[in-house]
């Protein structure tokens, strides 16, 4: 079964017919796309690093500071109540967006990294015993590897790799072999930040649950491209970032199944997460407040709310089809360049593509593209084990968002041609 089919886009909310993606209309919502870079129109192909922001998000943050600024969950005054209502509305929105069973399963974090660290420290820290195992796929971003190292070291547990195949897909047969009575946690990405490869989370979760392990999913790269349905994929924890979903930096979402969150100790202590505090001891609020110590990033949550409103109005079937068209065309055209190698070419992918040009270091090609106003990412993409797996030091990565066009794919291909002229002369 194709992983894409395993995570079907949900029906458009209004039940309307799917129309072609109106990219011109979407582009008009993003002020930065009018910018010129090095004298050329910006061709932004780095949305996997961070997506650009629509006017609605920028305005929501300004509006909060200009007319609504107050702390949440604190005051009896009108501004504080307004801010609290607006803040909690975003939690409800996020629960609907991800199809959580309840808003209390949604924790606001600083981002995907913070979400995974929270799960590692709080859940991992309380369940891991010496000899236990955490399985981590070879395609993980460092942010879904290092938090496990930190907690494993303390607990005397070990972190073991789930191998991936040359195609870029997870080796599910090897995964099945690795699962055992000592497996406590399986940490996998929903979509690779390097290759775009989509992992079949529901199959992984079913196998892990059979073995008595919980599944922690890095959803940073999937939520902007797939209509994620947490009930369908049935993972136990799911972390994602606002800023890759056209929202602001500094805010993210962590989903956890209610019974797991309920049993977890706080990660950080501070204001807003307590039931009662004595000098000698304290007791804690239920989830999600238990995991939100201190003043949260309120303005960023307002911005994230605007981003969720914005993307939830989209026809996701049209978006997925459009982005898949872009990445397929990019893959086809780049695949024709002599000496090119696409990493994980056989994988079902979100609109993220990594490749290597024979005889050209990705940084040099990236610099040539930059002089043409084309923004791509060059490097190891915080995925050194994956680089090692494919025997490379770095790749060039182009990632496509809702506002990218076929013309931009062509500009990239022309830019790569230019890079070969400059660097292979």
């Amino acid at each position, binding site marked *: 079964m194709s992983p894409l089919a395993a995570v079907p886009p949900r029906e458009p909310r209004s039940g309307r017919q799917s129309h072609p993606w109106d990219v011109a209309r979407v582009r008009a919502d993003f002020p930065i796309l009018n910018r010129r870079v090095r004298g050329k129109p910006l061709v932004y192909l780095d949305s996997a690093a961070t997506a650009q922001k629509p006017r609605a998000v920028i305005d929501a943050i300004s509006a909060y500071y200009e007319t609504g600024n107050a702390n949440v969950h604190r005051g009896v005054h009108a501004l504080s109540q307004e801010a609290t209502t607006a803040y909690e509305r975003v939690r409800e929105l996020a629960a609907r967006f991800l199809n959580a069973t309840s808003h209390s399963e949604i924790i606001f974090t600083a981002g995907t990294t913070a979400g995974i660290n929270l799960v590692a420290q709080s859940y991992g820290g309380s369940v891991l015993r010496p000899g236990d195992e955490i399985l981590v796929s070879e395609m993980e971003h460092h942010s879904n590897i290092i938090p496990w190292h930190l907690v494993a070291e303390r607990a005397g547990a070990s972190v073991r790799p789930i191998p991936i195949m040359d195609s870029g897909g997870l080796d599910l047969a090897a995964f099945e072999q690795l699962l055992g009575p000592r497996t406590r946690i399986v940490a996998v990405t929903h979509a690779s930040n390097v290759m775009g490869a989509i992992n079949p989370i529901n199959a992984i979760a079913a196998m892990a649950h059979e073995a008595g392990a919980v599944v922690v999913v890095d959803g940073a790269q999937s939520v902007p491209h797939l209509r994620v349905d947490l009930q369908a994929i049935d993972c136990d924890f799911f972390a994602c970032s606002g800023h890759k979903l056209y929202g602001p930096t500094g805010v993210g979402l962590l989903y956890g199944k209610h019974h797991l969150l309920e049993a977890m100790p706080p990660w950080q202590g501070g204001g807003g997460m307590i039931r009662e505090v004595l000098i000698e001891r304290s007791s804690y609020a239920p989830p999600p407040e238990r995991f939100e110590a201190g003043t949260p990033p309120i303005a960023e949550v307002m911005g994230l709310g605007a981003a969720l409103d914005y993307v939830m109005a989209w026809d996701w079937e049209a978006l997925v089809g459009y982005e898949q068209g872009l990445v397929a065309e990019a893959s086809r055209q780049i695949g024709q360049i002599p000496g090119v190698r696409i990493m994980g070419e056989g994988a079902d992918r979100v609109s993220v593509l990594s490749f290597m040009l024979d005889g050209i270091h990705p940084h040099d090609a990236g610099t040539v593209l930059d002089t043409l106003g084309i923004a791509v990412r060059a490097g*190891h993409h915080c995925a050194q084990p994956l680089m090692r797996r494919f025997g490379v030091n770095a790749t060039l990565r182009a990632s496509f968002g809702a506002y990218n066009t076929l013309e931009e794919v062509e500009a990239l291909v022309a830019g790569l041609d230019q890079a070969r002229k400059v660097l292979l002369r």
Partner: protein
Amino acid sequence: MSELDELYQSVILDHNRAPRNFRQLEDATNHAEGRNPLCGDHFDVWLKLDGDVISEAAFLGQGCAISKASASMMTQAVKGKTVEEARALFEKFHGVVTGSGGPAVLPSKLEVFRGVSAFPIRVKCATLSWHAMKQALESTALPTYGHTDIPT
């Protein structure tokens, strides 16, 4: 000449394709590894000191055209120099590629790296092996593979 042509002059591309002194120095007296954790590029630099003079310099590793050509030309440039001269050359080179060195004049061969200053993000590429060379001068221990995460 465009900024791009100035950055990727044919001398740089030539040294990238066919780096000089690209080998391990078996009888090295000094060694260091330069690593750029941001991009994963890394070079080992070996020096052989006869008294106060660098009689041999060599390197191995992986990096972009700028970093590899810079390493290649660095080994050529420091060969025959005294330790103090090599340190002084580091300062001059660093000043020129970061654009903070004022009107410093480099040995003519190294002038090709002046274009790097127009691309601040690439300065670390140009200085990676130079930092390793400077570090190697401090650390005679072999074969300790301590490495230096380079500043700009």
